[in-house]
């Protein structure tokens, strides 16, 4: 079942912060975050594993609440380059296939 992302869209000014949420109705093994710019392939940002730590690099970080099966992506002091569509992908089984099910995306626009 597809994870639910919120909000569907967000518009920011440079330097502002944003939070994107991803929730699942099923117990999760991992949550993956991707960013996709128009006409390009999704780019891997980070993965959060069950029992793992909060991840982050530069000004983008993410958390995974295993009890609620929710993940949040935090973008701080946003830059113009952060614009794009953000997708979360969830894996419900630690089996070898690790099939990803993606949310429908959050469109982030950063204005100067």
């Amino acid at each position, binding site marked *: 079942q*597809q994870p639910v992302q919120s909000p569907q869209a967000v518009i920011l000014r440079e330097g502002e912060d944003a939070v994107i949420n991803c929730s699942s109705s099923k117990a999760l093994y991992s949550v993956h975050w991707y960013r996709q710019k128009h006409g390009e392939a999704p780019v891997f940002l980070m993965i959060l594993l069950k029992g793992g730590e909060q991840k982050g690099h530069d000004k983008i970080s993410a958390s995974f609440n295993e009890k609620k099966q929710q993940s949040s992506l935090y973008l701080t002091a946003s830059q113009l380059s952060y614009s794009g569509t953000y997708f979360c*992908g969830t*894996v419900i089984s630690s089996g070898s*296939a690790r*099939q990803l099910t*993606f949310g429908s995306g959050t469109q982030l626009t950063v204005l100067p």
Partner: protein
Amino acid sequence: DAGITQSPRHKVTETGTPVTLRCHQTENHRYMYWYRQDPGHGLRLIHYSYGVKDTDKGEVSDGYSVSRSKTEDFLLTLESATSSQTSVYFCATRQVDEQYFGPGTRLTVT
């Protein structure tokens, strides 16, 4: 970057014709995946492979078949293309837990 290329990058074809899309990787990853991306649906898994000649169905496999005769190549075939298969198709490979995507193929079925 997992060294993934897709061909063709763009294709226009007519309803009822067969179409084959190719995914090539240079990283020797065991797992490979085909997704389609449509507005409002995000990315949906069509088929995946866990080794040479080993494949399995994903969420939206009807109307598609796949083959993998070599580790580096994963082919997606539309036996008889329909307008509902107009989409952007992405190939991906997996290293441990991380999936990396190829540049995509935009397919239009008229």
